[in-house]
């Protein structure tokens, strides 16, 4: 049932879509039928898979970098009220800036290559990671903190034997949110200036009215996102068998 139901749901939607294109006689350059989309993928399978891997790599490396920067940043914020007061509002402000608006500047700074895309990914990913880590660490139950205090535990022990562990389920919520944003961030970067990647495929195919190809690229993007999201869900289940109650989504 766990696999059958989502597959069934997708088949229903694809079926309705197909039916609509036939019944209403919609032109393929407006809305292609599922068959058109599959056909345009089969025309260029090697090329599309290559573009998929490029976008995937941008998203994953940007995501990895966000974790590597975001988690220590959250530790600093939780560890020091001064740092929190100094930098937390700045972080919120940074998150409030529309990433689409920053993208052209980022491309000017870092060029058309992969680094501008990775930076875009970091910009969209880092906020949920920092917030979920910091709030998870701050929500450590009082009696557990008191237990550590009663053992005269050092700050390092309190952080790494207690708070960080306690935050893990919440960190995973942030990570799952961030990983889907990562794909969006990579695509924004590619839209603005790139020579490769699925976002580039979509923007060029739009210009030549090859809607089926754009749809194929979008389907591949969706597959990447789903794979990354459920990959993390699976990792969480394996790594945190104790955190049953947090697994709502």
């Amino acid at each position, binding site marked *: 049932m766990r696999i059958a139901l989502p597959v069934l749901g997708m088949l229903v939607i694809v079926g309705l879509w197909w039916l609509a294109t036939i019944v209403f006689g919609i032109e393929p350059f407006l809305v292609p039928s599922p068959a058109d989309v599959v056909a345009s993928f089969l025309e260029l399978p090697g090329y599309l898979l290559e573009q998929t891997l490029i976008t995937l790599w941008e998203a994953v490396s940007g995501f990895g970098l966000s974790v590597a920067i975001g988690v220590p940043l959250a530790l600093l914020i939780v560890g020091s009220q001064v740092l929190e007061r100094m930098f937390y509002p700045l972080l919120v402000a940074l998150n409030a800036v529309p990433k689409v608006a920053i993208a052209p500047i980022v491309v000017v700074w870092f060029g058309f290559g992969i680094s501008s895309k990775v930076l875009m990914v970091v910009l969209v990913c880092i906020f949920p990671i920092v917030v979920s880590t910091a709030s998870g660490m701050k929500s450590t139950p009082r009696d557990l903190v008191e237990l550590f205090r009663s053992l005269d535990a050092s700050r390092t022990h309190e952080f790494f034997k207690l708070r960080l562990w306690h935050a893990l389920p919440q960190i995973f919520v942030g990570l799952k949110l961030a990983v889907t944003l990562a794909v969006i961030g990579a695509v924004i970067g590619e839209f603005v200036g790139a020579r490769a990647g699925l976002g580039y495929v979509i923007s060029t195919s739009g210009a030549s009215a090859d809607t089926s190809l754009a749809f194929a690229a979008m389907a591949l993007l969706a597959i990447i996102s789903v794979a990354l999201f459920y990959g993390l869900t699976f990792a969480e289940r394996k790594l945190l068998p104790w*955190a049953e109650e947090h697994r709502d989504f």
Partner: protein
Amino acid sequence: MISLQRVARTFGPVHALAGIDLEVGEHEFVAVIGRSGCGKSTLLRLIAGLLAPTSGRILVAGQEVTRPRRDVSLMFQRPALLPWRSVLANVLLPAEVLGLGDHRVRAHELLDLVGLAGFEKRLPHELSGGMQQRVSLCRSLIQSPRVMLMDEPFSALDAITRTELSEELQRIQLEHPRAVVFVTHSIDEAVLLADRIVVLSPRPGRIHEIVDVTLPRPRALGQVELDEVSRSLRGLLGEVTA
């Protein structure tokens, strides 16, 4: 072992405790009872070094308490286990944090003592509430504390488990007596376990009366002799609220 001298503690305008004088001997089990809000938990946190008194002095083993000590352990109302650690790893936590070296043999002995042999690798959420609290008891014994502070440790348990655990605690105290301050609102528990029972009156928390319980051990719940003490305690608690 523990000495409180004219101890008072305020939280802003609230007087939680005032004029507390109390001596607890090296092997003495002292129960503290009183209505909720009479500063029982504050008293424990003061002795534990988690709070500083507003005035007065607290000594443990002759030294003034200024911060938590490694020979004092604290046990809570909730088991307060770390959910990501196995039973064994939870019991070993104090030894690890205090840097006491390998205590695995002792941890196994303690788990044996409370009937949890074979559960070492389980995670806390796989255990019942009573078993979790037993793990918590083992954890507070692992560093061989000279003073044990217990904050209503059995109050969240069902009646049967509660009885079992109080009897186990009595056994442990008989085999290896230490200084214990045991906060409870159960009169029966206090009479079963304590050498002396401190009755606190609320707002500000003061010592209303200290009752000596001289009945021989081991005692059993439901024993007729205990009832008499319970009755007089009930009377005292009645005075306190009036």
